[in-house]
């Protein structure tokens, strides 16, 4: 079996038809990774399995990020204080996507009999940071649609990949799951474009709130609320300092589109501000 060659279990995890939550690294606003980081802090995630990178990732060398050597990771975790979910936090493979996605589903279904899967991620939008975030749900079959109605997600998305773009790996996974009869749902939250290369705790919180309610995780958001207040305060300070930037953000709040130059300048100024700002 593919799974025996490509994935292995190295820890204990109780059985019980859990839901698989899939988070890809490096999405807009780092939403998926920050959701996993938060769940780790609050629930204590324990690694129990992984997918071997051979065949799925380029292993000709290594990438360096933030001064550190990186290596592709695809690891399964389970929370020590919740047994109704298991989590895959993974880099997106660079080849053999279909086989990689099947390896995930083989591993999750054969070993843990997962009943459904959720993916989480951010999408870049031309909105302002103070505008309310929207969580969109895309299901791969009707089964989950009714279940999701109480969680305040938008369930009426119409979309087709525009020319020059490609579908997300989450869409590909939902499609593979559908072919295998596994119900799946993609949860997407919009991230203002000028925060997409940084972090957007507001958007992360929106996803976490849905997961918290759906899976009764009992998450404490006070720490995240402080982070959100700090982000808003910092952006407020930047807006006071730069009237042009302030005007552009206000335009976005009123739903007025910026020109390409204006948008680029706004993203650059915000990135510069946060990258040069001393931590804390």
């Amino acid at each position: 079996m593919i799974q025996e060659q490509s994935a292995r279990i190295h820890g204990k995890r109780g059985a019980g038809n859990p839901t698989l939550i899939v988070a890809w690294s490096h999405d807009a606003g780092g939403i998926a990774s920050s959701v996993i980081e938060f769940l780790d802090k609050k629930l204590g995630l324990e690694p129990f399995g992984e997918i071997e990178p051979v065949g799925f990732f380029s292993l000709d060398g290594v990438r360096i990020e933030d001064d550190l050597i990186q290596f592709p990771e695809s690891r399964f975790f389970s929370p020590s204080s919740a047994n109704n979910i298991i989590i895959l936090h993974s880099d997106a493979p660079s080849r053999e996507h279909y086989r990689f996605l099947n390896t995930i589903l083989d591993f999750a279904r054969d070993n843990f009999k997962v009943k459904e899967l959720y993916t989480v991620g951010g999408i870049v939008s031309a909105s302002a940071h103070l505008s309310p975030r929207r969580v969109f749900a895309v299901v791969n079959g009707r089964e989950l649609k009714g279940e999701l109605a109480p969680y305040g997600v938008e369930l009426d998305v119409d979309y087709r990949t525009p020319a020059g773009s490609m579908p997300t790996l989450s869409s590909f996974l939902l499609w593979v799951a559908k072919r295998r009869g596994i119900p799946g749902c993609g949860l997407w939250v919009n991230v203002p474009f000028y925060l997409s290369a940084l972090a957007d705790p507001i958007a992360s919180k929106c996803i976490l709130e849905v997961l918290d309610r759906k899976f009764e995780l009992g998450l404490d958001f006070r720490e995240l609320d402080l982070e959100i207040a700090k982000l808003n305060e910092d952006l407020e300070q930047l807006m006071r300092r730069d009237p042009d930037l302030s005007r552009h953000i206000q335009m976005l709040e009123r739903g007025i589109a910026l020109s390409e130059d204006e948008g680029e300048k706004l993203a650059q100024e915000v990135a510069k501000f946060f990258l040069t700002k001393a931590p804390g």
Partner: protein
Amino acid sequence: MGIRFHQKPELEKPDLIAAWPGIGNVGLIAVDTLRGALNAQLFAEVEPWDFFYPRAVSIRGGELRDLEFPACRFYFKRLGHKDLIFFVGEQQPGGGRKGYEMASLVLDVASLQGCERIYTAAAAVAPIHHTMKPRVWVVPNTEELVSEVRRYPNIILMSDIEGRGGEGNITGLNGLLLGVARKRGLKGICLLGEMPVYISQFPTPYPEASKSILEVLSHNLGIRIDLSTLERLGQEVGRRIEELYQMIPPEIREHIDRLKDVDYVRQEEPGAITEQDKERIMQNIQEYFKKGGKED
């Protein structure tokens, strides 16, 4: 990894004519034009998800309806005196194992249908001028076919090309398919339509080369096809090429124009342009395009 059959036609020793995208889509346009002109019918397709990343997702009312992948389809046509299978791939799979796997799948279908001969088509980047009629480089995968292909019209073999010693490369599936066919004992021929070296730098098709390939195929298959659509496309592209050509600085154009007198095919008698001249012309042209088509 597999093939989805829509029907299984009974065919008598068909020839397989296959193409994937390549430089100027020369081969693909030739094969797809022939397929369209003969109104060949779809009968099977490669399941694409093992080979390609999807190119579009459609979501309606919050429900993921489908993913769209590049298509790789088989068609058939009974001509009376000859049966044909066409294979048209919208995208080449990534290199290495995937290319080999796709070539094997295509040949599995060909063998299942009793196919005994395979044609592929592609571009041959050559030192010719765009006002010249492109010839067709013909590369068989077995010695047995050499004497036959020499009788085709407007063709050259690799051994006819000065300085090549009969050697060269065909990149991608248009070549690999014939290598895998050779391994399986299936005869095959690659038809490479000449494309001027400087045009291959432009993101444009080159229907003139496709037309030359089609002329060889039509001759070999004993058929006549309506080429008017391809000729119209050729005229339109010709106008675009002429516009681009006029944007090239005059001194580079002068070098390119000298290609009209270059014959890179081995000659019994020395031509008007010496080997050194040819090298200098090509060097000047290549240097210009290496700089991204900009002067210093």
